[in-house]
């Protein structure tokens, strides 16, 4: 069936209307008519939806009836449906690579308004493809086995859920977390919206399950530093930072913390966002997993100066878990798939100085309030002002660092609900009057609108308007000693001054500050805002452009806990699909050397970033290892004698395409 040299080329051409998506701009029947008259074209049709079953059936039927040996489909982007049509071609009995796709939707009908010009462009592109496909040859895909282990990067709720899903299915998981404990942002929350169930009660069992799971290797206080290889076969280097405590030996009794030469905890504690205090040797929070203490090298006298009585070592006694000789360690692992769940960072409220964060002590961020109302927090769950009084009135300012051209344009999606939850907690704890300043209330999740209703009924005041400033400059006696919010109430149409005791800034989410480094590390893309880019917003929401690398949770964009977990499950399922199949089919677009033409100049060898090209001394020819070649084609373009060629992107294929797009007038 495969057309070899000398066989007559018989091409079938199909142009898709895509409903009105293409046909609304491009005159599809006219293109089909034009292509029908081109040499080698036997069948030329236009059809409403080529990707539909009847559309694909059309191709299969024509291949058999008209003995076609080349197929061209003009429709959407090949990145979307090339696989679909290749399968149809194969099902019709033809090698799937005797096919070429023309993008007349994303690159034509959707971006041009001039119908005549768009139709001409479609003709030119179709002509080029009909010319190109003549040079296509039958190719075989290469199968590569998939290593069954998975790396999950980031131990927030998304990473925890993905790891557990995979581990429960019997897959071995390496979970790498930068901080000393897993748990991420969720571990800091008191309750979760809209159910007001205790965050720790739902998270802690999952964290312990990770710590105890026989299929999960948990490396906390560690970072991925290098990723090599490709889907199914990644070699990853993980840096394990010294925690000066042997994880195998420490049982988390915390005797060492009590024994530390610092009698009082005096250093700001990260878990309580700097509001609590800890010692140089500490456990991040009571439910931390792993339950292993950690020594802060920037604070510990022994690490810093080597001159400490080492009372911690004494306290540890014969367990001997404390080990000041620990050094940074690089560990190499092999995995088949990688799930990136590196999360977000909170907007720095100091960037909007008019809200007075860092100036007025009773202006706090939403996460700080979260720690203040939780019983495990620095105040034991008592919500107090900095001077120890109980607040009588609290105001929330929404969209701090969200939906704002001056900072971040996106909606952080969770702050409306998060603030309403905190507002309810504030009322519960103190009975204070609560006013929420909002732009729009966004409560689209399940049960969220009902929660908003409940907030209204509970007497929480909502004022629509972006707050102009926060000041302590009182102009009336009732403003004395209070913080005053100045804002336009856009529903009442007047500027208001509202005095309150405490102000909560609902800070938005931002990509991690090292998101760009991570993106390069895992060969992913970022959107302009810095969130990791999914392969397709609807059809491949947890895949990236690099096969075998998946994303889940807030590293992809702001989302709440249920959505993060749903994505994590999806990413785990995608990884499992590859593992359970056991192999991946690689695009056969590798480069190869035509030995007769190779002069042995070696100019290609240093060009290859994958060291796929070696020099065969005996033959004095270059030699390409197809298993290492990733098909970029850089060596092909560089070869001075034209002896390196590339499957699917042969010189004559590209040349005929150039000729094609230009010779159609």
């Amino acid at each position: 069936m495969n057309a070899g040299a000398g066989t007559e080329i018989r091409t079938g051409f199909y142009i898709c209307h895509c409903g009105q998506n293409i046909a609304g701009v491009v005159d599809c029947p006219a293109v089909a008519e034009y292509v029908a008259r081109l040499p080698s074209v036997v069948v030329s049709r236009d059809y409403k939806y080529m990707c539909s079953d009847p559309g694909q059936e059309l191709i299969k039927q024509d291949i058999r009836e008209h003995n076609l040996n080349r197929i061209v489909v003009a429709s959407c982007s090949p990145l979307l449906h090339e696989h679909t049509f290749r399968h149809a071609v194969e099902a019709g009995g033809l090698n799937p690579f005797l096919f070429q796709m023309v993008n007349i939707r994303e690159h034509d009908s959707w971006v041009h308004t001039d119908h005549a010009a768009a139709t001409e462009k479609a003709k030119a592109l179709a002509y080029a493809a009909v010319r190109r496909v003549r040079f296509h040859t039958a190719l075989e895909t290469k199968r590569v086995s998939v290593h069954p282990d998975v790396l999950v990067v980031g131990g927030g709720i998304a990473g925890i859920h993905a790891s557990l899903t995979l581990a429960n299915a019997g897959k071995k998981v390496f979970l790498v977390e930068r901080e000393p404990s897993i748990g991420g942002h969720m571990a800091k929350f008191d309750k979760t919206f809209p159910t007001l169930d205790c965050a720790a009660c739902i998270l802690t069992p999952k964290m312990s399950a990770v710590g105890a799971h026989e299929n999960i290797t948990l490396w906390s206080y560690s970072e991925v530093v290098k990723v090599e290889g490709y889907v199914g076969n990644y070699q990853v280097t993980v840096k394990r930072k010294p925690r000066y405590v042997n994880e195998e030996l420490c049982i988390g009794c915390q005797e060492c913390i009590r024994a530390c030469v610092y009698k009082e905890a005096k250093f700001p504690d990260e878990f309580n966002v700097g509001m609590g205090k800890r010692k140089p040797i500490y456990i991040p929070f009571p439910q931390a997993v792993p339950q292993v203490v950690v020594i802060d090298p920037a604070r510990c006298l022994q690490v810093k100066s080597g001159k400490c009585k080492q009372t911690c070592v004494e306290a540890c006694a014969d367990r001997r878990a404390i080990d000041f000789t620990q050094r940074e360690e690089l560990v190499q692992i092999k995995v088949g798939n990688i799930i990136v769940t590196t999360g977000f960072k909170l907007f720095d409220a100091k960037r909007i100085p008019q809200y007075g964060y860092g100036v007025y002590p009773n202006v706090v961020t939403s996460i700080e309030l979260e720690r203040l109302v939780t019983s495990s927090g620095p105040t034991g769950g008592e919500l107090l002002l900095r001077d120890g009084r109980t607040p009588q009135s609290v105001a929330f300012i929404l969209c701090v660092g969200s939906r704002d051209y001056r900072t971040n344009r996106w909606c952080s999606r969770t702050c409306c609900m998060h603030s309403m939850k905190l507002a309810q907690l504030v009322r519960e704890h103190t009975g204070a009057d609560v006013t929420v300043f909002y732009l729009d209330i966004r409560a689209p999740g399940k049960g969220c609108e009902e929660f908003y209703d409940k907030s209204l009924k509970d007497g929480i005041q909502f004022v629509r308007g972006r707050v102009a400033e926060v000041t302590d400059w009182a102009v009336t006696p009732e403003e004395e000693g209070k913080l005053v919010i100045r804002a336009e109430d856009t529903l009442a149409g007047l500027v208001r001054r509202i005095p309150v005791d405490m102000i909560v800034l609902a800070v938005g989410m931002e990509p991690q500050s090292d998101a760009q480094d991570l993106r390069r590390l895992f060969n992913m893309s970022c959107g302009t805002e810095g969130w990791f880019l999914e392969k397709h917003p609807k059809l491949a929401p947890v895949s990236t452009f690099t096969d075998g690398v998946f994303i889940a949770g807030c590293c992809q964009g702001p989302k709440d806990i249920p959505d993060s977990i749903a994505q994590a499950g999806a990413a785990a399922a995608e990884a499992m699909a590859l593992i359970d199949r056991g192999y991946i089919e690689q695009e056969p677009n590798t480069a190869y050397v035509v030995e007769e033409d190779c002069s042995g100049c070696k100019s290609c060898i240093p060009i290859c970033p994958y060291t796929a090209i070696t020099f065969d001394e005996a033959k004095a020819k270059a030699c390409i290892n197809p298993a290492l070649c990733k098909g970029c084609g850089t060596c092909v373009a560089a070869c001075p004698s034209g002896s390196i060629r590339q499957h699917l992107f042969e010189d004559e294929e590209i040349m005929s395409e150039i000729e094609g797009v230009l010779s159609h007038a």
Partner: protein
Amino acid sequence: MPDAAFQPRIVAFFCNWCTYTAADLAGVSRFKYAPNVRVVRLMCSGRVDPQFILSAFSQGADGVLIGGCHIGDCHYSEGNLKTLRRFQMLRRLLRGLGIDERRLRLEWISAAEGDKVRVIVNEMTEQLRALGPLGLPGRFEEWDREAGRTEAEAAGSEAREEAAHA
């Protein structure tokens, strides 16, 4: 005065991972731009052989646009660096051939920069419209005719000389 009716023809070589995807994104976002560009998809901008560019110009392209991932972001780690090197060499070569450098453009457009595709294509179309047609195929024909005439003249004079000697 540039001819407003002149429709420049641009051949674009876009890498699969960044710029081609950006052009797809421009489509999905329904950004409107000039219909003068014809995209040839390659896996990497590093695959762009200088011959592709010369061949495009010689066959009637008024401009050639190469689109790749930003430096440091290449899907194949460093293919775009090779492109950059070739591009600089080619611009010098084009200058030597009397082709305005602005007709060859190299742009780094990431998968997220759909709008940049619109901006660059529109900008380049306007610039080429101002430059006017390159018209190499026409010029080749002219040169062929000129060469033909010179040959014919040479042959004629030779024949006359031979006749004179006879």
